[in-house]
């Protein structure tokens, strides 16, 4: 068997870590070697905010708090060399100018679960810290509003702790008494003070408008409470958690292979785009290098989903501006896209088609014609959308300079993807950190200027054009070869080899029934998903299942940023902004 493994170089030895050690001395505890592609530094919790501040003030600053979450380390067996910890909180910072990341980890013991808050340094930390509190019960000293964010306020327990059951059958049967119902109802009563809002100003009462979780323009189960003066938004508070399904918890009891279908449903308009960061991260752990054909097939299908997702965006975005017809046109285009996707993968929205070490099947006969039909159909339609809508005076009036923010503001709140590029920041992972062979493709990264609702819409039309360009190159230059890597950890293994002899049969049986066992390491893969940067941070403990799967989704910080741009706007502006963010609640709540 051809062992086509790849050795992933350790990223230690970076000058930055040396500088950190010099500046902070023994407050920098340990440098962990991982497959995450960035230095991972354990620090003491007292030094944490200073370190974050230091990194943010560097000449080429780490100015984007990319992710913040925690790991329950109590059941982890392979911890050689790591500082002792019951829980770990990790902070992943990103530097746009350096195009580099760094991860800080803080070890905590179970009897003292508290970390100083990072909200003063990175405002985006607010929701992340609330999520860590909600899921792990780790408190953040000095946090302005440390309450549950994904679970209901009346919930008991912290679901992502290892001692919290993962299966419904491990709980007692659910009962709801009359008193219980009354307590739940009472907990839902809206108190402006609890949300940090005042009831009146200068003797004039504000109106509190509850928009969602069932509202035509909330794009799913999303709620915003508006503090209104007339129709002017004085303040607003987004409320999430209505779509929480515990995907990260599920990852801890699914085999590496059987978690793939769950990823499809994270950004449910993104289809196989969600599989990509997950399988790439797993392949890093497994040391699998996939054939070129797999890379190109993956890119092609991911770009197909970028187009169908952007078409959905475009239709609903224009509908939120009150235009009734475009959504029907974009949906019929999207239908043509799904015809192609269905022809190739056999499914429409959630194909779960990527596999560890390849894709599920080879491309069917005649796939070129199918894809080419779609490629020929789309460009005139995109032009039509521009002519009918983006050049329409009312649309321009509704969107120009509405909910505008600049690059600095975007980075402050952790905005990525098209919403970041609409501010003029040229940061597209497909160019900056090519994965799955994106460096072999010829395409441009469209940029906006004003970072307003209009730019966010126009930019996505342009992105669809670039995606069509990439797919065209896939059609023209599809490499020959296998659709699965020739590697012992490829799951499921190629079936043809199963019946060769008893050894291959047993291997196949084990791979399919138990799933592959991956070595204890940590890996992380980011991709430029449909809505921004999506990544899977996998911690393996040498088992058939993940020890911890952290899913960083772009929509989560995008929603957190809403109040900062909407203050002083009108209700219709908020609706336009919601339409232009392009979020799905499954991507926010996971």
């Amino acid at each position, binding site marked *: 068997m051809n062992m086509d493994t790849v050795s992933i170089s350790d990223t230690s030895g970076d000058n930055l870590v040396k500088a950190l050690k010099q500046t902070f001395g023994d407050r920098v505890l340990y440098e962990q070697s991982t497959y995450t592609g960035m230095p991972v530094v354990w620090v003491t919790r007292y030094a944490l905010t200073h370190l974050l501040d230091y990194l943010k003030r560097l000449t080429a600053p780490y100015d984007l708090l990319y992710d913040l979450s925690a790991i329950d380390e109590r059941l982890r067996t392979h911890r050689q060399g790591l500082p002792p910890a019951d829980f770990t909180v990790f902070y992943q910072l990103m530097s746009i100018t350096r195009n580099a990341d760094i991860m800080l980890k803080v070890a905590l013991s179970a009897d003292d679960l508290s970390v100083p808050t990072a909200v003063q340094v990175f405002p985006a930390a607010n929701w992340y810290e609330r999520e860590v509190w909600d899921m792990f019960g780790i408190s953040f000293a000095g946090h302005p509003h440390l309450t549950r964010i994904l679970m209901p306020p009346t919930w008991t327990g912290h679901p992502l702790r290892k001692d919290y059951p993962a299966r419904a059958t491990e709980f007692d049967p659910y009962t709801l008494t009359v008193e219980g119902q009354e307590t739940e109802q009472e907990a839902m009563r809206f108190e402006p003070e609890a949300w940090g809002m005042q009831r009146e100003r200068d003797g004039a009462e504000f109106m509190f408008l509850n928009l969602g979780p069932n509202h035509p323009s909330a794009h799913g189960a999303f709620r915003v409470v508006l503090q209104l003066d007339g*129709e002017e938004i004085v303040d607003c508070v987004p409320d999430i958690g209505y779509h929480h399904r515990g995907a990260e918890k599920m990852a801890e009891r699914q085999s590496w292979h059987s978690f793939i279908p769950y990823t499809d449903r994270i950004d449910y308009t993104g289809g196989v785009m969600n599989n990509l960061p997950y399988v790439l991260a797993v392949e890093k752990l497994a040391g699998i290098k996939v054939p070129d054909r797999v890379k190109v097939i993956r890119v092609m299908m991911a770009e197909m989903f970028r187009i169908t997702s952007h078409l959905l965006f475009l239709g609903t975005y224009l509908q939120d501006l*009150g*235009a*009734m017809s475009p959504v029907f046109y974009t949906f019929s285009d999207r239908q043509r896209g799904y015809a192609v996707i269905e022809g190739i993968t056999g499914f429409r929205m959630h194909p779960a088609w990527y596999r560890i070490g390849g894709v599920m099947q080879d491309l069917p006969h005649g796939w070129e014609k199918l894809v080419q039909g779609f490629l020929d159909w789309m460009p005139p339609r995109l032009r039509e959308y521009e002519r009918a809508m983006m050049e329409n005076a009312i649309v321009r*009036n*509704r969107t120009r300079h509405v909910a505008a923010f600049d690059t600095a503001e975007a980075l402050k709140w952790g905005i990525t993807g098209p919403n970041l590029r609409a501010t003029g920041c040229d940061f597209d992972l497909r160019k900056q950190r090519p994965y799955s062979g994106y460096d072999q493709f010829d395409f441009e990264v469209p940029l906006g200027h004003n970072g307003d609702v209009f730019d966010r819409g126009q930019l996505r039309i342009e992105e669809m054009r670039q995606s069509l360009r990439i797919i065209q190159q896939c059609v023209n230059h599809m490499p020959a070869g296998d659709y699965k890597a020739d590697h012992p950890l490829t799951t499921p293994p190629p079936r043809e080899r199963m019946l060769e002899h008893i050894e291959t049969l047993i291997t196949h049986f084990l791979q399919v029934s138990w799933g592959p066992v991956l070595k204890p390491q940590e890996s992380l893969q980011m991709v430029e998903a449909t809505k921004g940067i999506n990544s899977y941070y996998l911690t393996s403990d040498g088992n058939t299942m993940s020890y911890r799967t952290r899913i960083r989704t772009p929509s989560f910080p995008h929603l957190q940023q809403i109040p900062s741009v909407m203050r002083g706007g009108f209700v*219709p502006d908020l609706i336009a902004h919601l339409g232009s963010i392009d979020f799905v609640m499954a991507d926010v709540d996971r």
Partner: protein
Amino acid sequence: MSWWTPQLTAIFWGMFQALVILLGVVLLGAVLTVVERRFLGLWQDRYGPNRVGPFGTLQLVADMLKIFFKEDWIPPFASRGLFLLAPVLAFASLLLSFLIIPITPGWGVADMHIGLLFFFALAGINVYSVLLGGWSSGNKYALLGALRASAQTLSYEVFMGLSLMGVVAMAGSFNMREIVAAQENLWFIIPQFFGFVTFLVAGVAVTHRAPFDQPEAEQELADGYHIEYSGMKFGMFFIGEYVGMVLVSALIVTLFFGGWHGPLLPPFVWFALKTSGFLLLFMLLRAALPRPRYDRVMSFGWKVCLPLTLINLLATGAVMLWVGA
């Protein structure tokens, strides 16, 4: 038969006409709800309702059955009397305006010398229906819708009246039949083009049709002032909107497009053809345009339409004085 006087015949004939027109308009409003959905389907590359009866023709029957048999529900937090009054006002005020529309030389309900003024009065009453409906519902979305509606209607009624004064000046009368008669040789669309444009805008705004549907703005206010209404009370708002469309179309035809005048075809056919043309325009507007922000709608009314109507009125007056002199 000495008691059967010609006056009595006239009275019965008038009542008969009124009844036919009343039922005709209500029925037309109801049919339009389905016709619009079919047309929107056509323009939006889809079928629209095509399941009930051949080509979906019986959809209206299904809708009617549904709406009649729905529970007549009043929210406990609503203010009952006003809540009930609002849809009646919405439906009745626009329907009553048909009193003044001359359909053909022989057909029409009333021949009033105050004609147009009667329409303005009823259009003024119509805004109360939205205001009361939104206010009495006890719902914040409804309240916002009602506020938008009253602000918008106030702004647009100012120049709606003024936009027609040119026509009145040229015809020398508020009477609709005299206005039609004055257009025998030249439709008022030519000399009163700006009057026509501004009246069209105001007409769309008065009926709360897209792109002036800010009071109900589904995406923003989740249907605005009638959010709490269901069953037949909602039906009256709904059909009322279509009756309003028919009314404004008929008014435009009467005031600017020569009413029943036209070669070869009988007067009624001309009237019907012209009116359906404008009804189609209403539907097409809804399919084609996004919704402007409501403060921009207001400033458009005050800063563009009002000055335009005033200039139009001044110019009309000046030309008439000059020609007259």
